[in-house]
């Protein structure tokens, strides 16, 4: 591409990916590359208990014996794991602080992203507007958590995982790695060795968490991997709804994001976990963007427990992600609602696993994949009915929508049933965005891009309506933005 054309394209892209700017802030980083010293450095920086360091080191040593998985339908050049910074933190953030002490430059960053970190601003909003508590993670560390006091009065713990390791080590130790063991898979094992921060949530028995909890992840520093670890524990009879949002500046290099999320729902507990993933997807030619290699898994450990994953995946150059449910408790319920949009050169390989172990366990999978440009979008799902999962039920619906004729959609369902009383239903459709629908909209005065956004939002409605209200509106807009330039 000629230099001028490139500049024009970059300027245009700037308008498209509106979170592509960078915060100028002094950072402290560990030297590039990975070895035992780096693992020790991270652990020491966080003043972690010895058992935590041991666990990290075990993970690191195990990781050395592993190779990157290649089964996903994604292509990318080999990642040089020695060319990444594994720790980057804004200077002067020795652990979490009160909001007044947070660097104003950071507060401005989140303001610009539309994330309220000042509690009074949230309170001053529209009367009756739901409150959302936010944990903000900037590169490797949590910089602020809001509404802590109010949550504490209900016994809810919501803080960064580093802070939890200081103040509630027994809780972290009891649950960490019990859903995603450190040996689980290449990226999860890497995360176990070097995770730098993330959120910790604990809901005591019988408590209905009084507000939405959310974590906002921002990758800022260059050549930095983000390895956050989130752990949510919902005790017997409790309820929590948790949201996760993410953005990153636009860079020509690819950046690695390898997170692990573990959910534990005990008897009668319910966890709703929603994600709006808008990492930088790279430019139209496929340059730059985030590699999003994430392991998310929830255990319905108690009887009658319920876990619901809702995800809207619009960003990242490559998405490799399968939020899953292990349905151990009798009558437990797992749900997965997903919208995955891949435009330009993006590649997404995403889906879920529903592992039915207990009796009368039920799962429901609704996946909407949208592909445009030259993108590749794969749904990969596993439904397993174990021998004791008597009367287990699964319903899966996978719909793919294609925009243009250069993109691809694939559906790869795996079904394993080890008992005869279980029922698994799978429906799949693939359609092209209708010329008749587009023309109908345009005839009514709706511009082409708005028409695409409208039709795609309609296509995704079943999933979007599962998002908490305040996120649903954002997600709808995001659907439109991420498909800009996909027609005409």
């Amino acid at each position: 591409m000629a230099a001028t054309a490139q500049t024009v394209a970059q300027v245009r892209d700037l308008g498209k990916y509106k979170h592509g700017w960078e915060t100028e802030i002094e950072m402290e980083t560990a030297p590039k590359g990975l070895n035992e010293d780096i693992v020790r450095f991270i652990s020491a920086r966080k003043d972690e208990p010895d058992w935590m360091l041991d666990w990290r080191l075990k993970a690191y040593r195990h990781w050395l014996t592993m190779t990157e998985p290649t089964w996903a339908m994604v292509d990318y050049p080999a990642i040089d794991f020695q060319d990444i910074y594994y720790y980057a933190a804004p200077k002067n953030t020795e652990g979490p602080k009160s909001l007044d002490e947070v660097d104003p430059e950071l507060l401005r960053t989140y303001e610009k992203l539309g994330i309220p970190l000042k509690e009074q601003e949230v309170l001053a909003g529209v009367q009756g507007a739901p409150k959302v508590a936010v944990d903000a993670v900037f590169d490797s560390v949590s910089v602020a958590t809001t509404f802590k006091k109010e949550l504490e009065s209900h016994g809810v713990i919501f803080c960064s995982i580093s802070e939890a390791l200081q103040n509630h080590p027994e809780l972290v130790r009891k649950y960490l790695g019990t859903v995603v063991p450190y040996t689980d898979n290449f990226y999860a094992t890497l995360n176990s060795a070097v995770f730098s921060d993330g959120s910790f949530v604990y809901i005591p028995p019988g408590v209905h968490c009084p507000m939405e909890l959310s974590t906002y992840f921002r990758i800022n520093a260059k050549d930095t991997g983000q390895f956050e670890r989130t752990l949510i524990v919902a005790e017997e009879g409790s309820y929590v709804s948790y949201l996760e949002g993410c953005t990153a500046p636009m860079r020509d290099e690819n950046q690695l994001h390898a997170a692990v999320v573990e959910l534990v729902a005990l008897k009668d507990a319910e966890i709703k976990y929603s994600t709006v993933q808008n990492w930088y997807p790279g430019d139209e030619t496929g340059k730059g963007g985030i590699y999003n290699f994430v392991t998310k898994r929830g255990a319905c450990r108690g009887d009658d427990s319920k876990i619901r994953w809702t995800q809207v995946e619009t960003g990242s150059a490559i998405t490799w992600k399968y939020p899953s449910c292990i349905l151990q408790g009798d009558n437990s319920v797992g749900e997965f609602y997903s919208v995955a949009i891949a435009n330009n050169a993006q590649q997404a390989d995403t889906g879920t696993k529903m592992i039915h172990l207990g009796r009368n366990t039920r799962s429901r999978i609704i996946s909407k994949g949208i592909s445009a440009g030259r993108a590749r979008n794969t749904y990969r799902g596993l439904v397993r009915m174990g021998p004791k999962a008597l009367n287990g039920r699964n319903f899966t619906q996978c719909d793919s929508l294609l925009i243009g004729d250069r993109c691809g959609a694939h559906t790869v369902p795996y079904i394993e049933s080890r008992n005869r009383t279980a029922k698994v239903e799978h429906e799949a459709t693939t359609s092209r965005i209708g010329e008749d629908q587009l023309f109908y909209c345009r005839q009514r005065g709706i511009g082409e891009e708005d028409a695409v956004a409208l039709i795609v939002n309609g296509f995704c409605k079943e999933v979007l309506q599962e998002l908490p209200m305040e996120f649903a509106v954002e997600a709808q807009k995001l659907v439109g933005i991420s498909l800009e330039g996909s027609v005409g």
Partner: protein
Amino acid sequence: MLEIENLHAAVDGRAILNGLTLAVAPGEVHAVMGPNGSGKSTLSYVLSGRDGYEVTAGRVRFRGEDLLALDPEERAAAGLFLAFQYPVEIPGVTNMTFLKHAVNGLKVQRGEEELDAMQFLKLVRQKAKALGMSDDMLKRAVNVGFSGGEKKRNEILQMAVLEPAFAVLDETDSGLDIDALKIVADGVNALRGPERSMLVITHYQRLLDYIVPDRVHVLAGGRIAQSGGKELATRLESEGYAAFVEKAAA
């Protein structure tokens, strides 16, 4: 208002319109009749700018502008509305949402201020009520699961809300029961005015009892084979198109 001159159009390389000439003055209602497959819907798509309907010769002026140079949404903004013979379903998008995007899409293009939620709601409720449409209908996805007649009524609702300067109604009467036909005709008549024109495509003279046209045209062989007053429709009803088809083929 609309002047079509010597229009030739092809679909998939096949000529459908062969030198069609037609002019509709402001305030006039013209009816177009013609046998199945004669190109009536093709004419409506050519006027509204659908992809795949290729104009090979001729010109169309609309309110002084070269209509054929505009994109479909620009034609809509210029005041052109098409009530589809086969209205399209849009799953997951409610009638309300669709109409709101349409109303504001037109306003933005015209450089006017968009309606806020309250103003919009009021407007739509009022129009829906006049057409005997329930609130429930407004909350349903566009045309999804609508009966044939409901779809047609929905087209007229959209027209009533968007208030176009020129409406092409493509067989809006087909599939309507007698009561619905009257309601739709009332809706159409309510929009008639000195600055508004319509092209009503129909197979039945019955509709023209309710919407009385200024002119009636017969489309055959890809052009207007005959024009006349309302009495032409009555004649067609008794005699059929045979004479025109033969004449066009000759």
